[in-house]
C-alpha cells in the first residue's frame, strides 16, 4: 500500500508513473511475452508428465480410476524378468546405435565437407532417410527383412553364400541387429548434417596453419577438427541418445517387441502393458522408469556442453 502511495507521490513530482515504468521494463515485458508459451508447455508437457508419474503409483486400469498403491507397481516390475529384458534391450539398442551413428555420421560429414562434384546433390541425398516418414521406412525394412521375400536373403542365396533364408525378424539376435541397423539408417543423416554444419564453422586457415605446422591429415583431425567440434558433438549426441532411447515407432511397426520380447524396448513394453493390456498404472511405471536414464543422459551431455574455457568471450581472466 505504502509503495503505491509513494509512487503516486513521485509521479506527482514529475517522475514517470509506475505504469509507464513497467511498460519500458524489459523483465516485466519478457514475462508477458513468455507467458503464452509457458502456459502451453505446462498444460501439455509438464502436467501430463506429472499425471503419468502419479498414475504409476496407482492401480488404474482402462475405464477405472485407480487407488493409490504406493510403490507396488515398481515392486512388481523389480521382479519382472521381461521388464529387465526391456531395460537391457533399450540400453543395448541406444548404446550400439548411437555409437555407430556417431562414427558413420562423423565420417560422412568429413566426406561431405570436402570439395567434390555434385556436392549439393549428394548432401540432399544423404538427408533422404531422415525425411522419409518412420513408418514408411519401417515398412520398407519390414520387406527387406521378410522371412520369405527378403531381398538380402535372396541376394545372398543367389551368390551361393547361404542355403536358407535368414530369419531376420524371427530370431532374437537377428531381430535386434536388424532393428539397430534400421535405426542407424534413419539416424545417420541428422548426425551427419549437424556435424557438417559444425565443420563448416571451422576457418580453413586453421587447417592451412596446421598443414604448415606439419600436421598430417589425421593430426589435423585429431588436434584441430575434433576439439573444435566437441561442443556440437555434445549437442547432437544428446539428441541422438534421447531419440534412440525413447524410440517406439520403428520397433512397433516392425516387430512389436517380438520375437519372445527380444526387441521390446521400455517404450514399447510400456505401451503394450499400459494401453493394449489396459494396466495403465504398470505401463506408467515402466515409462516413469525411463526418466532416470534420460536424466542421466542429459546430465552427461550437460557437463559435456559446459562452455570450455577457450570458448569464453573476450575479457581477461
Amino acid at each position, binding site marked *: 500500500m505504502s509503495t503505491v502511495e509513494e509512487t503516486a507521490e513521485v509521479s506527482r513530482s514529475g517522475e514517470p508513473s509506475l505504469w509507464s515504468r513497467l511498460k519500458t521494463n524489459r523483465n516485466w515485458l519478457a514475462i508477458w511475452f513468455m507467458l503464452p508459451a509457458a502456459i502451453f508447455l505446462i498444460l501439455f508437457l509438464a502436467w501430463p508428465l506429472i499425471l503419468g508419474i502419479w498414475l504409476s503409483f496407482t492401480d488404474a486400469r482402462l475405464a477405472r480410476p485407480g487407488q493409490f498403491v504406493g510403490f507396488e507397481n515398481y515392486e512388481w516390475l523389480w521382479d519382472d524378468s521381461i521388464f529387465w529384458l526391456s531395460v537391457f534391450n533399450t540400453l543395448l539398442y541406444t548404446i550400439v546405435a548411437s555409437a555407430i551413428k556417431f562414427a558413420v555420421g562423423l565420417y560422412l560429414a568429413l566426406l561431405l565437407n570436402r570439395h567434390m562434384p555434385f556436392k549439393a546433390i549428394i548432401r540432399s541425398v544423404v538427408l533422404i532417410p531422415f525425411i522419409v516418414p518412420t513408418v514408411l521406412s519401417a515398412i520398407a525394412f519390414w520387406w527387406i527383412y521378410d522371412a520369405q521375400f527378403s531381398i538380402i536373403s535372396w541376394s545372398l542365396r543367389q551368390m551361393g553364400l547361404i542355403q536358407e533364408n535368414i530369419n531376420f525378424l524371427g530370431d532374437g539376435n537377428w531381430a535386434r541387429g536388424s532393428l539397430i541397423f534400421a535405426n542407424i539408417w534413419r539416424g545417420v543423416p541428422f548426425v551427419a548434417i549437424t556435424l557438417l554444419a559444425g565443420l563448416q564453422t571451422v576457418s580453413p586457415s586453421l587447417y*592451412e*596453419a596446421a*598443414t*604448415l605446422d606439419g600436421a598430417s591429415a589425421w593430426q589435423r583431425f585429431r*588436434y584441430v577438427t575434433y576439439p573444435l567440434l566437441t561442443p556440437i558433438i555434445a549437442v547432437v549426441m544428446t539428441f541422438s541418445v534421447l531419440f534412440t532411447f525413447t524410440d517406439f515407432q520403428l520397433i512397433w511397426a516392425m516387430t512389436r517387441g517380438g520375437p519372445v520380447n527380444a526387441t521390446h524396448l521400455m517404450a514399447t513394453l510400456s505401451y503394450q502393458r499400459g494401453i493394449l493390456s489396459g494396466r495403465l498404472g504398470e505401463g506408467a511405471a515402466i515409462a516413469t522408469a525411463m526418466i532416470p536414464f534420460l536424466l542421466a543422459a542429459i546430465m552427461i551431455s550437460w557437463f559435456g556442453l559446459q562452455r570450455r574455457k*577457450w570458448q*569464453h*568471450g573476450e575479457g581477461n581472466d
Partner: protein
Amino acid sequence: MASVQIRDVRKSFGDVEILHGVSVPIEDGQFVVLVGPSGCGKSTLLRMLAGLENITSGTISIGGRVVNKVHPKERDIAMVFQNYALYPHMTVAKNMGFSLMLRGASKSEIGERVNKAANILGLTPLLERYPRQLSGGQRQRVAMGRAIVRDPQVFLFDEPLSNLDAKLRVAMRTEIKELHQRLKTTTVYVTHDQIEAMTMADKIVVMHDGIIEQMGAPLDLYDRPANQFVAGFIGSPAMNFLDGKLQANGSAYVETAQGQKLPLKTMPQGEGGRDVVYGIRPEHFEMGEGGLPAEVVVVEPTGSETQIVARIGNQEVIAVFRERQSVKPGDKISLRPRADAAHLFAKDTGKRI
C-alpha cells in the same frame, strides 16, 4: 635461412590466368615486400611459396631446392596469416609449441623454445591464456611467435597488420622490422599498404594484374618509378599527374591543354610535341611567384604538414607543405613544381621517359 628464387611462375584457376610469369630473386636474409592493389596476385604468389596453392608453371626454389612438388611441411617455412589462424582451443604456449609437438620434440625442448620466443615478443605473462582472451595486437604477436619458434628458413607474412587499428599497425610494423633485424631470416611479406612496404622492405615488388610492375629498393621506387602505375601507387598522398605535350623552346617544359607550362630540368631525348604525362609529387610543389595559378579547394592540416587540394585549370592536384599555410578554400595561389623532381611518362604506354 635461405635464398628464394621465383622463376617465371604462372598460376591459372581454370581458364583464368592470374599470374602471368613472375620472377623474383630473393637473397638470403632479405626482407621482401610484395605490394599491390587487391586482386593483383600477391597473396596467391605467397600461398604458392608456402605450398598452399599449386604452381601452374615455372619454378620456386628455397635454399637452392626446387619445391614445386614439395609438401608444405617439408618446405621449412612459417607463415603468419591475416586472421592469425590461432588455434582457439589451445593456450598461447600450446599454439606456439604445436609444430614442435607434431615433430616429436621433447617437452623440455618445446618449453625452452616457446619461452625463448615468448621472451623475444614479450608474451611470457600470456602463455597460459587462450586466443580469445587476447587483444588484436597480442594475437598478432602470438602468430609471429608460432612462426619464430620453428626457426624456419623463410617467414611468410600475409597482410598481417590489416586487422589492427592504425596506431597498433605502426607499432607492430616497427616490431616486425626489429624482429627481422634480430633474426635475419629471409622474409616475404604481402601487403596492399604501400607505407608498410616502404617502411619495412629491403626490396619492394610492386605487382598489378598478375605481373610485376617494378622491383627494387624502396627509395629507388620512390625516386625513379618505372611507370605511371608505380608512380601513383608508391607515395602518399599519391603523385599528381597532369597531361600535356612535351615542348622545347629555350628551356624544356610540358604544356597543358590550357597552355600552362610545367617546368622540366632537362629535355628528354625524343621528339618535341609528344603527348606525355607530367608527374609531380605533392611534396614537390613550392608556393610562390611565377608558378601555376591555382584555386584552393580544400585545406587539410595534419599538424606536421598541410595538404592543399587545388585546381589548376580543370585538373585537381594535391600539394603538401611542411610549413603551415594560411590559405582558405577559394583563395588564388601560385604553385611552382620543382623541375628537378618532375617525372615524365609516355601518354600511350605509361612508361617512364
